[in-house]
């Protein structure tokens, strides 16, 4: 009971602090000149707010204090074929605060909104030939890569230093997960050839899990929407697809082009079933890609959506904003707990489905028909 009261007090305190912040915002809001009011009320658009959060950026926005943005500038790496500034350009993204830099600028609207563009000969703005800037998501990716490497290299070191000993510490935390991937995903889905796929399955499992989890921590350098980005899930799904094809045996292709157990007239002269099977083979990785992307992005959208509610209601009335903050924080806590579950489930599902695809690729012929 005492615990609960303490939590409640902490919660109220937090709500009060957030309220004070909102009040300051309101005061500025009212005392400022009309132009500023117009700009700021225009500034809060939940749609843009949410999309900005779940999307990528050339700088990492941390917070806004008195209308001044505090953000970490990130390196921009672009290669341009533009005659005026052809070649490789590397500079920090805060150069864009003054608008254009070396002919590059960040588009504010259009198809390339938020991306680096340059002016083409015909006057339109186009993307430079190569843009491999270290964006917010790339940095978040590097951070989680460092976490993954340090965790598992240290765990591996412990295994080497203390073989045949009961696991302890970080090793004790990771071992059940490693065994889970091995005994509950790889072995049942693939069969006796599972050992070949273990490094990849373990890597995607922990890569997705850790990126999902770091995405839930709302402080720099975490909280980016890495596994909710289509490029990330595309690479993961593509690798699963390539490994499936690379390990596929004769039987796998027979299953696709001459599916056993199907009447012949479904295959000749119109290859209906082979067509469906072939499309299915391509759809599988596509679905993998979309599922992870959609699940994680949805989680982020909901969390940000709840916070947006505070500002939407706060703009109408201070009391409503105050009331809404309690509801929003409660719901966000609930959603975060749910997202913890989703983080694990999505890592599990992606790994399990990859394992199933590998399993179907290496399966030996055993049909009696």
């Amino acid at each position: 009971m005492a615990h609960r009261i303490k939590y409640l007090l902490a919660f109220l305190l937090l709500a009060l602090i957030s309220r004070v912040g909102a009040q300051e915002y309101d005061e500025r809001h009212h005392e400022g000149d009309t132009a500023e009011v117009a700009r700021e009320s225009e500034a809060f658009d939940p749609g843009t707010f949410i999309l900005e959060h779940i999307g990528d950026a050339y700088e990492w926005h941390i917070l806004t204090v008195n209308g001044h943005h505090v953000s970490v500038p990130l390196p921009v790496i672009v290669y341009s074929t533009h005659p005026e500034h052809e070649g490789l350009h590397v500079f920090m993204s805060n150069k864009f605060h003054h608008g254009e830099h070396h002919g590059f600028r960040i588009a504010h609207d259009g198809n390339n909104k938020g991306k680096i563009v340059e002016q083409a000969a015909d006057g339109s703005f186009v993307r430079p030939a190569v843009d491999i800037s270290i964006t917010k998501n790339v940095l978040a990716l590097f951070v989680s890569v460092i976490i993954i490497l340090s965790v598992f290299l240290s765990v591996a070191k412990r295994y080497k230093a203390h073989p045949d000993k009961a696991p302890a510490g970080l090793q004790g935390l990771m071992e059940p997960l490693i065994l889970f991937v091995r005994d509950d995903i790889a072995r049942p889905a693939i069969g006796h050839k599972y050992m070949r796929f273990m490094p990849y399955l373990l890597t995607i499992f922990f890569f997705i899990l850790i990126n999902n989890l770091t995405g839930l921590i709302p402080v720099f350098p975490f909280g980016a929407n890495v596994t909710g980005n289509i490029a990330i899930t595309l690479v993961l799904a593509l690798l699963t697809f390539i490994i499936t094809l690379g390990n596929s045996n004769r039987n796998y292709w027979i299953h696709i082009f001459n599916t056993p157990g199907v009447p012949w007239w479904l295959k000749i002269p119109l290859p209906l079933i082979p067509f469906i099977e072939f499309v299915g083979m391509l759809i599988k990785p596509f679905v993998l890609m979309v599922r992870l992307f959609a699940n994680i992005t949805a989680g982020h959208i909901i969390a940000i959506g709840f916070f947006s509610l505070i500002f939407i209601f706060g703009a109408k009335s201070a009391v409503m904003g105050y009331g809404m903050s309690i509801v929003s924080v409660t719901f966000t806590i609930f959603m975060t707990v749910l997202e913890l579950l989703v983080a694990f489930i999505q890592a599990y599902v992606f790994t399990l489905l990859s394992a199933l695809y590998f399993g179907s690729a290496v399966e030996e012929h055993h049909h009696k028909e």
Partner: protein
Amino acid sequence: MQLVSPDIGLLFWMLVSFLTVLFLLRKFAWKPILNMLHRREESIEQALKAADRAREDMYKMKADNEKILVEARQERDRIFREAQDLKEKILADAREQSKKEQMRIMEETKTLIQTEKNNAVKEIRALSADLSVRIAEKLLRRELRNDQQQKTLVEEMSNELNLN
């Protein structure tokens, strides 16, 4: 639409970092970890098997011990019973022996007594015959001290003869 169109830069970095992670972890983490796990599982399995065997051995030994104990108990009982039997037999034998001896002695005594009695009877008979002869002699002498008496006797005897 930007949300679902993959960014080439991010794609590039993702591919590079993921493949690096995959390569590094495969070589330096997953292989040693999986090998160690496999080794540990094997050693645990062996230890369990050894424990099972030891337990079986222990049960067998326990059963053996029990068997030995039972056998020893039986042996003891047997020896005890044998001793008992032997004792009884010895006692019975001794009793028999003494009875026989007794009988023999009794028999001997009886025979001796019989012999002695016979001797005594014989002696008494001889003595009594002798005594009778002597008494008869004395009587005769007294009876036939005078002629008168001798005459009477003869008469008597002749009378007796006549009567017959």
